[in-house]
């Protein structure tokens, strides 16, 4: 799980162009949207693509993302349960 969390952090930094952020800067339990990293709606859509690209997970509706993308921890849990690659 720890490995997956680090991997997710690296992928998010790369996917969302968070150039000045390092994995250590991201608290896996902290909210990703609104505060913290200040991500917005386009970032959420990009995270949906990321899940599909790296983990073979297709969300049937973008609304599902709201729960999944709460924090790095929630993403990691979802990925571990649902990944197909």
């Amino acid at each position: 799980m720890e490995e997956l969390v680090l991997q997710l952090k690296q992928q998010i930094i790369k996917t969302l162009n968070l150039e000045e952020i390092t994995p250590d800067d991201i608290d896996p339990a902290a909210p990703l949207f609104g505060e913290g990293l200040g991500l917005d709606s386009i970032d959420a859509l990009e995270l949906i693509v990321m899940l599909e690209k790296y983990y073979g997970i297709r969300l049937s509706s973008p609304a599902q993302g709201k729960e999944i993308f709460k924090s790095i921890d929630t993403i990691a849990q979802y990925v571990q349960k649902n990944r197909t690659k």
Partner: protein
Amino acid sequence: MKIVATNITSPLGFTTRQNLEAVMHGQSHLHTWQGTFGIPEPFCASLFSDGQNHELQVPDMTRFQSLVYRSVSEALSHSNINVASSRTLLVLSSTKGDITTPLSITATKIAAKLGFTTKPIVVCNACTSGVCAQILALRLFQTGAYDNIVVCGADLQGKFIVSGFQSLKATSAHPCRPFDMERNGLNLGEAAATIIFSREQAPEKQSWNLLSGDIRNDAHHISNPSKTAEGSYRSIQAVLTPERKDSLSLISVHGTATMYNDQMESVAIQRSGLSDVPVTALKGYYGHTMGATGVIETILAIHFADKGRIPPSRGFSELGVSGRINISDQTITTHPGSVLKIISGFGGCNAALYLERCQESETRVTPCGYTTLSSVSITTDTVLCDGISVPTTQQGRALLTEIYKTHIADYPKFYKMDLLSRLVFVASEMLTRSKTFNDADDCSVILFNRSSSIVADTEYMQTIQPGNYYPSPSVFVYTLPNICTGEIAIRNNCHGETSFYILPDKDCELMDLIVRASMTGNDNSHVITGWVDCNSDQDFEIELKLITRNI
């Protein structure tokens, strides 16, 4: 400015009359497509059939060039204007054109083939382009620089655009439902439409005239409209007087059937006190035809106003927006009168037009003068502020990051921008920091280039390769070059105009005319304007200036 001829070329027909009849009879060519363009997910769109494409094809022209050529030619056949005159102009409205060929080259080729001798201007203001092109025409016409202006809006569909809108989760796989409770996204569509404005001929004693147009930015977000409809509301206020409000037959809305757009437009209409004016929403007939949509909807709106009958807003059934609007799934009877056309698009851009059937009232205005308050120019290895060199060590893309880190540093969104927006962003920051720039509220951003959004286009295409198909929403957004104007508006909280024009070359005289014409009759105090061309990480230039109108 008088309308003397029009054309609509769409899957519903190749003339305005055919399109009008089709819409009046409730026809649409919206179908669900599966596997088309190599796109895995189904999508619903209004596309030309193979037979129609064959019929439209012009030798030695691409599908897009042929479409524009046919639409403009058909419109010209209804007028006597002298195309070859130095006082006749072609304005092309398109978001993506041929995609792989820069729109400046495409427009030049089409203009030459049609016999124009002046340089064409491409308006690339996302979904608002078709309305903004008419506004540009009105302004240039009023300066007296041209006697005839041919405005053509066009876009075609393919893998690039459809995959991009799908990645933004903005599309519906079923026929779209504007303003409806059940709406769940837009449909894309193919079409071209042309309006010829001229001072030379009068087919009728009272012709339709475009009397007023206005462009405003939300300064809110690059892809989501303002919840308070700020830009749309302001553009409506700018074109309507109390008398004009009372004379409206109808409002032609954008009505894309996305959750946000329709909600925002309903707020703009209610805020403007126009809840009782009948609304026409046409995306259920055509889908979203992008560069063409603002032109098609203007043409059809004036015909509805003439007939006093507005066809059902196809796809609508039960109101699903918070603002009160007068929309129907039945034909609405209205009094003959004037038309308000509104539209909004990515980059936070909103525009409005006011048209009326009247005796032509010739308004001639002298473009105002301006004073340059500051200037910045950046190339791949030099930065000049007001002519003074700023010491830097990096080159190319890295130079922009260096400027950001050294002189700005408080806007991490910089890292999310594409190269074009980064370039415009750092230049505008250098431009405004050296001057007192407290009152930015009505500041406009008007930019020009030649190569559109070629860097983002190339990057996006990498994400839709067969076998490696993961369309990137954040890259796709930047394939609209006007997004960079929205970035500046958001950063500085500017609710003035944002416009992006693509020209065949860096024609300073023409750019100056367009900018001065925009300031005339506008209440903007400041304009950020200039040339910004961006071909690769190692090949870009920007010359930006902050100007203020002479009083």
